[in-house]
């Protein structure tokens, strides 16, 4: 019996809970019996070692906007017996908290961690990876980069044995939406940003996306986890998309290029940066809408390109569930 605790019950946490309910039977066939023993949010939580009623937890969260007070995440970690935590609290790339403490405390107890939270990995990837190894626990984080676009396990499993020497990718769907709309509509950045906000694609304060912060955080995770590097967020050379004009697209188009925000890490050339780049129109990275994409350069397999949905609660849940299955697939 796999006992699961979910920390963070926002869009992603609820998305995961829904998949666990909806796909219960299919999952059981893959990983065996499981039950959710705790769900927490920033205000409180529900916990029971015999298993909690997930649909009821979802109902409470949706009607009252919060879980019942009294049970904190640290209470659950300290007093409950469980096998795996799904850490999906809010990302904080400055100090990684509260996720960093949750993940450390779980790993320290030998509890496996599946997370979508970029903060702790950006701040302390190496420390967490070492801790996991020492405590014989697993740290899974497919959902931190590219949403449903497979990249972490793709490189670790399917491209195992390859040396990945460079990755170039579109890792932020909001920026890609804005740029591809500017390309098509010849409207200004501000006009398209307003449209993106209305559609819920951009946040009210879009800084995190449009200044390339989100993409840079993902790039740090990629570099450290897939390319055996040890880089920090501050090491990323970063230029956002706010100064791009409709004329820039016209001039670029005349020469057969479009413009996209590209996150690039190159071990050979010593490159670690997020910046708008000229992309040939037929290039596989010249994608439109909120999609994410990555071009992975390897020594044996050559170039591999992946494209997928980079955000959304269902898409992120997909990455989390795939990590969960990867952890427990062999058990019957």
């Amino acid at each position, binding site marked *: 019996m796999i006992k699961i605790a979910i920390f963070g019950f926002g869009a992603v946490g609820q998305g995961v809970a829904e998949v666990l309910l909806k796909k219960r039977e299919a999952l059981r066939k893959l990983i065996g019996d499981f039950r959710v023993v705790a769900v927490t949010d920033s205000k409180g939580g529900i916990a029971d070692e015999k298993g909690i009623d997930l649909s009821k937890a979802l109902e409470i969260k949706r009607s009252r906007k919060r879980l019942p007070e009294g049970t904190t995440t640290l209470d659950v970690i300290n007093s409950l017996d469980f096998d795996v935590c799904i850490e999906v609290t809010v990302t904080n790339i400055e100090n990684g908290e509260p996720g960093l403490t949750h993940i450390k405390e779980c790993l320290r107890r030998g509890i496996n961690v599946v997370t979508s939270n970029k903060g702790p990995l950006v701040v302390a990837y190496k420390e967490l990876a070492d801790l996991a190894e020492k405590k014989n626990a697993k740290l899974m984080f497919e959902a931190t980069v590219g949403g449903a676009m497979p990249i972490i396990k793709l490189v670790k499993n399917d491209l195992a044995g390859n040396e990945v020497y460079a990755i*170039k990718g579109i890792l932020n769907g909001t920026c890609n939406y804005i740029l591809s709309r500017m390309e098509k509509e010849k409207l200004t950045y501000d006009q398209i940003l307003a449209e993106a906000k209305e559609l819920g694609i951009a946040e009210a304060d879009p800084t995190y996306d449009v200044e390339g912060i989100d993409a840079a955080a993902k790039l740090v995770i990629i570099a450290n986890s897939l390319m055996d590097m040890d880089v920090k967020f501050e090491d990323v050379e970063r*230029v956002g998309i706010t*100064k*791009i*004009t409709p*004329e*820039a697209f*016209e*001039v*670029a188009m*005349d*020469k057969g*290029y479009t*413009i996209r925000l*590209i996150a690039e890490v190159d071990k050979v050339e010593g490159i670690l940066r997020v*910046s*708008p*780049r*000229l*992309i*040939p129109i037929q*290039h596989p*990275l010249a994608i439109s809408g909120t999609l994410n994409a990555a071009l992975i350069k390897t020594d044996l397999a050559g170039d591999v390109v992946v494209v997928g949905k980079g955000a959304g609660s269902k898409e992120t849940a997909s990455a989390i569930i795939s990590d969960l299955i990867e952890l427990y697939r062999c058990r019957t």
Partner: protein
Amino acid sequence: MLITIVVELKDQPGQLLKALEPISRLGGNIVSVYHQRDKITPLKRIPVEITIQIDERKVEDLIEAIRRNGVIVRSYNEVRLTATTSLLLIGHIIHTDLGDTINRIDSTGFAEVVDMHISMPQLNQPSTAMITISATSDDNLKKAIDILKKTCREKDITVIEPLELQ
């Protein structure tokens, strides 16, 4: 790299082969062969200009091999500016002394601005330029791009680089 060799050949059958044989042997690719019959020398030799693409480390060997075949090598030159790329600039390009921006590349001696298209939407609005830079090698092209990026940082101009250098 691309080089041009001018050899002097006797006006007899089989002479050209002596000049071309070492090129193919050393893996060079002949781009063009031009007989300058109008520039025939007092000793009745014909200057022939051969342009080839070859690994730059093999150039000295090549010249040596041609000479050993009994062919006079009058001159050989590297064809400059083999690496080219285009970048996009966005900002107040004209009012931040465009001449100076270009000159910082041109004054390197290894790279120059060979083409530029500017689009100016309105007065006081940022303009956009597609700038094409050529350099004598890929490494020098990278250096030129770094100089351009530094210059543009000083002038608050956004530089959009190509995904890959061609």
